[in-house]
């Protein structure tokens, strides 16, 4: 079970109050976590990554285990701390503005 923490606007869209728990087949990757997230919450399609190209939206970041995974290959296996549910997979709306 993988824990996913969403930014407030996406929690509101998905109608969830806290972290989302997902069952993701091994080996879990950023791509497969997002696939599972969008399958469970179709309203999130297009809000984190492009519908067609699947590229990450520019102001979205992926963090886990105090690491920025945003630029890692989407098919790279996630750390066992994430796949075991010990650490959350964080979807971050980047700080932007003044």
């Amino acid at each position, binding site marked *: 079970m993988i824990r996913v923490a969403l930014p407030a606007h996406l929690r509101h869209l998905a109608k969830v109050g806290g972290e989302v728990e997902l069952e993701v087949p091994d080996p879990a990757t950023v791509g497969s976590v997002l696939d599972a997230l969008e399958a469970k919450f179709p309203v999130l399609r297009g809000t984190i990554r492009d519908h067609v190209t699947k590229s990450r*939206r520019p102001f979205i970041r992926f963090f886990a285990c105090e690491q920025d995974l945003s630029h890692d290959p989407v098919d790279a296996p996630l750390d066992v701390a994430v796949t075991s549910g010990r650490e959350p997979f964080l979807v971050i709306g980047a700080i932007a503005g003044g």
Partner: protein
Amino acid sequence: MSGVRVLVGTKKGAFILTSDAKREHWNVSGPHFAGWEIYHVKGSPVDPNRIYTSQSSGWFGQLIQQSNDGGKSWEPVGNEFVYDGITGTHQWYDGTPHPWEFKRVWHIEPSLTEADTVYAGVEDAALFRSTDGGKSWKELSGLRGHGSGPHWAPGAGGMCLHTVVLDPITRGRMYVAISAAGTFRSDDDGQSWRAVNKGLHSETMPDPDAEVGHCVHRIALHPSRPNVLFMQKHWDVMRSDDAGESWREISGNLPCDFGFPIDVHAHEPETIYVVPIKSDSEHYPPEGKLRVYRSRTGGNEWEALTKGLPQKDCYVNVLREAMAVDSLDSCGIYFGTTGGQVYCSPDAGDNWAPIVRDLPSVMSVEVQTLR
């Protein structure tokens, strides 16, 4: 009992303002979709309780929300806007080719006859249509495929298709306006298009009279006489009496002919409204006086409408989507400002009062007349 429902899109959410036909006391609902940019909210003429909202964010992209109970509750519908076929390029600010990229929906136009049909004008400029209530969207690519498409260039606000006008009488006819390409007309339900910009003159272009490249800000028509079109161009207020085949200037005695919105009185096809703005680099009213100008002669002769509007130290803007009219017996005129005020005149512009004063910056105003 009759009344009005004013649909307001702002930089930080949507608001719904309701009143009875007197338009004196208002109920304010919102913010809906708090924190999101709401470019446009518009109801279906076929089913007034069916309302669509364009909800977007620089972080999270585009959503379309639909209500079937007059805005009390909302459900997201389809948000997949994929250009048809080979994407191609348009011109970028520096003159180089730039691939078409979907950014957001500027304008939603529900069909005049089919409750489940709705059009979306998007940036980068294209027109999409849904025939299933917004669940899925298909590009009407004959527009982007117009031969001039590779030469279209963005205005300062992006290359947006911001205006969609449906002809209520001539079957299959519709107009769109694109900044900065101009006005286009289709006579076959959006399958094919041609530029209708003859008579427009823009000194900011290398060829001021070119077929395309004009920064059209808004066009409007009266439903009883749809061959007559009114246009607020970047500079110049214009009129066409032949469905866009030719245009002539009607700026007349306006203090300034720059501006964004233009609209037509619900019962008087020759009565039109604009809000002059000082210039394209000073997006506020001339002399700090917020004045709506009304022409009862279809242009050229304009009168300032000021009663109830701030006449000193006012430096707000009124954006292209932010003016609308109701169709009650005494036609109501509405507009919203970048300062967060929404004003109503229940008597065709003679007297104004703010409905609300402190909303986020207003991007769009639409009105539904409820009977």
